[in-house]
């Protein structure tokens, strides 16, 4: 049905068409057998168009590549199709800079289209979707449907634009369909068909504004280009955002920007810089094409405005963290007081009231409000005196003091500040100004709280970082599975003990503990069970050793026990304790249900050992002996001199 409607539009003769060169280019490329020379000749006839084509051909950031200087160069770089579409796009722009529709803002239309074009090109480059130069034209022409409809039906379209419901694309599209039985996206797609643009691009234009249509896209190329256009549209909106933009638009923009940033894979800083480049490109192109541009708001500013807008819409409630302030309102005029109280309650705060300065002072000392709002002129104790009295009290320094003043009291403002007043509200007060002043006070509070919190945190973190360093050390020295010290630590510790034993001339012994039949456990019951067995073994060992004995995991199923200041006899007793404890400890896990046993080798450091490695070796030999003798036993290494005696 749209095709029939479109035929009608075409029949009006008022659809935008590329003039002169653009039309020539179209005609040439519609032929089967056209040559690049024909194309080059046609475009070169228009120097302005040529210039723009070359500008675009050289936009891509390729270092060390000779710039394109002729149309043929551009054709080689971009491809003939892209060149044709670029020529088309630019000639449309120059021919339809203005039009017949009264309410249609042609300047703004092309300004936005250009921004979208530049953004689309940059996104295409970044995401490697499509040909960047083509993405440019796609962005430029995506909205051409609106211009087309406005050209064919200027009065009707003006009426639509005047409709207050026409706030955003989807709404406008609905109004268009109601009036013309076709909307601008569909029109644009059909126009692009006339101009020979490829199907995925046309489809992308048709669907890019509608979430529903995008979701049903069947072709990946289409979907990618549609997404590209959607992102580019957000950026175009950012470029055109100004002080007139409504609060809700800022929040929508900020959210949209986050989506784009995510899609492009940037962090905040990179994205800011990238957007800056897009904005600069837009300005440059604007100059070239005589399209107005403006200074683009920075990302920070947009986010700031969005936050402000969110805070403003939440104004009836207290601040976003749900902080209700306690506010003391003081005024001798009952009527004013009632109004002030109502405003504050409506803003979501807890309100206390007082009729004069003295009453206010008493209440403040009792309930410690965050903020005091007081009228200046009051009998007995006026606002300034109240403020001075409060400030004299140490805790009264922190209260945020707002003074209500009449317009004619403004010259005495200095006197007020000298008394310690924080800020003013002029009566009769504008509720928004009152709220702004309150927010100020609130922020001051939060800042003070944060500072207090920070000093508290600093002390805490100093303690913590000491602990953290110790923890980090421990992690490097701990065996993950069993929680015991690991081999690395054991080596270090043994070295330390060895040196100490030498220096102090104290005995030093080690036990090497080897779990009996562990491989069989793994084979028969699985490694998970094996892990549990090891963990329980480790726990038994570390639970049985005494203060001067240190257990570490030495290897797969091996453990090392360092017995400080212990002779072989003493170490052997320790070893026996361990053997008995393990043999009595029943381990149940999965299919395993039994007691494990260990073979323990004991060795004492003696003068025949050059280093502690020798000590370890002797303990190892002892384990071997214990295994050979039947397992589940302790074997003590015989010192050299004893061995010599034996063999003698």
């Amino acid at each position: 049905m749209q095709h029939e409607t479109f035929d009608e539009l075409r029949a009006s003769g008022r659809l935008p068409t590329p003039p002169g060169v653009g039309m020539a280019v179209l005609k040439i490329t519609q032929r089967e057998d056209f040559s690049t020379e024909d194309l080059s000749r046609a475009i070169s006839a228009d120097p302005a168009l040529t210039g723009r084509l070359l500008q675009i051909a050289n936009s891509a950031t390729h270092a060390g590549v000779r710039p394109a200087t002729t149309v043929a160069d551009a054709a080689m770089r971009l491809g003939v199709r892209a060149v044709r579409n670029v020529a088309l796009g630019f000639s449309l722009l120059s021919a339809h800079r203005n039009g017949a529709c009264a309410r249609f803002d042609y300047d703004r239309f092309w300004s936005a289209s250009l921004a979208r074009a530049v953004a689309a090109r940059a996104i295409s480059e970044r995401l490697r979707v499509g040909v960047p130069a083509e993405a440019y034209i796609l962005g430029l022409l995506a909205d051409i449907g609106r211009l087309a409809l406005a050209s064919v039906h200027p009065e009707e379209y003006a009426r639509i634009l005047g409709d207050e419901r026409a706030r955003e694309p989807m709404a406008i599209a609905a109004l268009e369909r109601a009036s013309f039985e076709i909307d601008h996206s569909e029109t644009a797609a059909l126009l692009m068909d006339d101009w020979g643009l490829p199907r995925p691009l046309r489809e992308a234009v048709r669907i890019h504004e509608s979430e529903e249509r995008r979701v049903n896209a069947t072709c990946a190329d289409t979907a990618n280009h549609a997404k590209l256009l959607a992102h580019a549209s957000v950026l175009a909106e950012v470029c055109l955002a100004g002080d007139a933009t409504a609060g809700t638009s800022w929040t929508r923009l900020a959210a949209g920007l986050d989506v784009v940033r995510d899609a492009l894979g940037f962090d905040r800083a990179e994205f800011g810089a990238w957007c800056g480049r897009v904005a600069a490109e837009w300005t440059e192109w604007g100059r070239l094409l005589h399209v107005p541009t403006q200074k683009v708001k920075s990302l920070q500013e947009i986010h700031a405005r969005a936050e402000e807008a969110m805070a403003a819409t939440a104004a009836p409630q207290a601040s976003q963290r749900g902080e209700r302030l306690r506010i003391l309102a003081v005024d001798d005029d009952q009527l004013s007081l009632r109004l002030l109280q109502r405003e504050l309650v409506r803003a979501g705060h807890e309100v206390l009231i007082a009729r004069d300065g003295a009453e206010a002072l008493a209440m403040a000392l009792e309930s410690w409000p965050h903020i005091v709002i007081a009228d200046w002129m009051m009998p007995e104790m006026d606002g300034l005196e109240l403020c001075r009295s409060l400030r004299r009290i140490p805790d009264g320094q922190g209260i945020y003091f707002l003074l209500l003043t009449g317009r004619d009291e403004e010259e005495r403002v200095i006197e007020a500040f000298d008394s310690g007043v924080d800020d003013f509200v002029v009566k009769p007060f504008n509720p928004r100004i009152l709220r702004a002043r309150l927010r100020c006070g609130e922020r001051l509070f939060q800042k003070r709280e944060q500072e207090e919190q920070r000093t508290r945190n600093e002390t805490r973190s100093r303690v913590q970082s000491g602990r953290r360093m110790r923890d980090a050390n421990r992690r490097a020295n701990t065996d993950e599975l069993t929680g015991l010290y690991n081999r690395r630590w054991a080596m270090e510790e043994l070295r330390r003990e060895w040196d100490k034993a030498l220096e102090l001339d104290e005995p030093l012994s080690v036990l090497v503990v080897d779990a009996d039949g562990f491989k069989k456990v793994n084979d028969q019951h699985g490694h998970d069970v094996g892990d549990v067995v090891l963990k329980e073994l480790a726990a038994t060992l570390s639970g049985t050793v005494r203060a001067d004995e240190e257990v570490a995991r030495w290897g797969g199923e091996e453990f090392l026990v360092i017995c400080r200041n212990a002779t072989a006899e003493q170490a052997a007793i320790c070893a026996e304790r361990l053997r008995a404890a393990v043999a009595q400890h029943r381990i149940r896990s999965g299919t395993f249900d039994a007691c494990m046993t260990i073979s323990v080798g004991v060795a004492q450091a003696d003068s025949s050992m050059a280093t502690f490695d020798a000590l370890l070796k002797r303990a190892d030999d002892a384990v071997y002996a214990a295994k050979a003798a039947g397992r589940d036993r302790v074997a003590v290494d015989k010192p050299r001199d004893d061995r010599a005696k034996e063999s003698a």
Partner: protein
Amino acid sequence: MQGHDTNGSGARDGAADAVIDMQVIAGLRELGGEDEPGLLVEIVALYLVDAPRRLHEIDQALASGDLKALERAAHTLKSSSQNVGATGMAQLCKRMEELARRSEVSGVRVLQDEGSRHWREVERALRSLDA
């Protein structure tokens, strides 16, 4: 209200012409909102009690020559008149305040006469409001 311009958006040259600024009244209605729909009535009622008291204070202050007291009363009445949209009354009070500060007693007296007369119109306008 025949012959009186109770709508503040009408011609308003000269402070004494405007009796009640209806935008202020609308604002008060909105301030009450849904949780305090009686706010407007409450405020107007407060004013209808308070204003005569202030005017009486001004009378007494003039009689006793206590210009400070007069200044204070005029200041307060100015403020509350602004709050209910009695802009004409507020203007009168403002001028009274200034003159009292400058000790121009005779000037104050003239304004006070005007004030009493104006008060009757203000009162009538306020009582005829459909809150």
